[in-house]
């Protein structure tokens, strides 16, 4: 048994996408990336610039992590306010290294749908919308997204609607981490408790597993950072991430 929970697997493997000296952005409606950025700040021995949608730049939280990833608590200790217009302009002019952007559906090329389930004109479900992704995805250096549900409904061969397409490089689910390789999402590493067959069965698009490795176990520093951010398990309970039931 691994020391990952499904929740810690997603958060910590999002955190591991962050690189030294880069500019990394976390947006609205993005609780898990917010936590991932905070984990990286606390657990990793390097500097990076963390911008967030609340306007904060390298904020240092004074109190508990806010429930809303757009809360002004994420500007505490920030020495500038980098507002929405600022970070979008930064992105489109080429200054954004890594952004976490939400997605309801993802296809094998890394295009995303945040708009509708069903037809555009007569949607079965109206989704939240892509936020910045149609503008950011083609202009940033690397995007990463996450799904709390790893299923053929979310990881699909064909999107209902293509809200955004561009440099989506990584996808983290409770089962595995996908990386873009030759234009397609391939399994880079997988949760130690699942098999590659289970991943393929739960994934709606064709995916290369030839270079997949078990995901390294969480470090004590990563787990300690996450515990410090979610001491009473509120975020873990709210996220309600479960492993898909697989016919193993």
């Amino acid at each position: 048994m691994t020391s990952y929970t499904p929740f810690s697997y997603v958060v910590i493997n999002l955190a591991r996408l962050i690189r030294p000296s880069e500019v990394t952005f976390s947006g609205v409606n993005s609780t898990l990336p917010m936590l991932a950025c905070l984990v990286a700040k606390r657990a990793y021995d390097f500097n990076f610039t963390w911008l967030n949608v609340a306007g904060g730049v390298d904020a240092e939280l004074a109190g508990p992590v806010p429930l809303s990833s757009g809360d002004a608590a994420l500007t505490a200790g920030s020495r500038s306010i980098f507002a929405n217009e600022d970070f979008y302009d930064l992105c489109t002019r080429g200054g954004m290294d890594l952004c976490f952007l939400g997605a309801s559906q993802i296809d094998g090329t890394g295009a995303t749908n945040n708009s509708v389930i069903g037809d555009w004109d007569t949607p079965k479900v109206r989704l939240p919308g892509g936020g910045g992704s149609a503008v950011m995805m083609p202009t940033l250096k690397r995007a990463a997204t996450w799904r709390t549900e790893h299923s053929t409904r979310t990881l699909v061969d064909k999107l209902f609607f293509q809200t955004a397409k561009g440099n989506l490089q990584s996808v983290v689910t409770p089962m595995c981490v996908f990386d873009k390789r030759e234009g397609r999402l391939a399994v880079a590493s997988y949760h130690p408790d699942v098999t590659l067959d289970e991943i393929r069965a739960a994934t709606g698009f064709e995916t290369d597993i030839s270079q997949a490795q078990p995901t390294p176990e969480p470090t004590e520093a990563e787990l300690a950072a996450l515990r410090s951010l979610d001491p009473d398990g509120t975020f873990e309970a709210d996220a309600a991430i479960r492993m898909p039931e697989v016919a193993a």
Partner: protein
Amino acid sequence: MTASEKLTTLEEMVAAIPNGASIGLGGSFLHRGPFAFVRELIRQGKRDLEIIKASPGYDIDILCRAGCVSRVRAGIVAMEGNFGLAGGYRKAIESGAVKLEEHACMTLTAGLRAAGAGVPFMPVGGVHGSQIAEVSGWKKIADPYGSGEEVWLIPAIRPDFAVIHAHAVDRDGNARVEGSPHWDRAMTRAARKVLVTAETLARPESFAERPELTLVPGFMTAAAVHVPQGAWPGSLAPVYDVNYEAAARYVEESADGSIAEHMAAAPEARQEEPA
């Protein structure tokens, strides 16, 4: 001192909004939205409004539930916090009662910037590969200066009104915002008229002490109202946090088909009651 030509009441401010108006709202999701203003739109039974905001949530949800809205331009819509999707909005779109023009947040900003700069369109980075451009009928052009780049142009978006909730306003309509302005700068430059609700009514001298913090100079403000707790149940940092309890009750109550208790519990409604 001359009497203020700008200060009014919430009732009067909203009474001047005609049915069918397009209204740009300030703030983002649960934060610093002009929510007391939004509720007054409901109380006065406004109809056929267009709401323009990159990231609406509570505001668009309750307006949809109250039947005030026929059109929305937005980038991402959710209750946020830990509340997930905005059910009233979702139902209104899915039923066809409300028509959505979906934007990437920055395409909406580009449209506002076009209006703010007095030009009919604004180029925007990205958008390539997004079907939003198709369904919205946006045009792209090749860079006329020969870079070979193709660029999407967003048509100007000029709301009839921009409505923001500020930290402070003075009697002449100068409005101060702390923390992120979100999109309020672009919104107030794009709109035909700017309306300000504010948490505090401050002395003019306090604006002169730090004029850099004034987001909207008074001459641009058509009307201003002092509305304490005007962003309730959202936050106005650092003065108050999101009232998660009230927001949760709104989500539950409204899912059951009513918003009456929520409307009655709003600070501006309770202030109106005789003590």
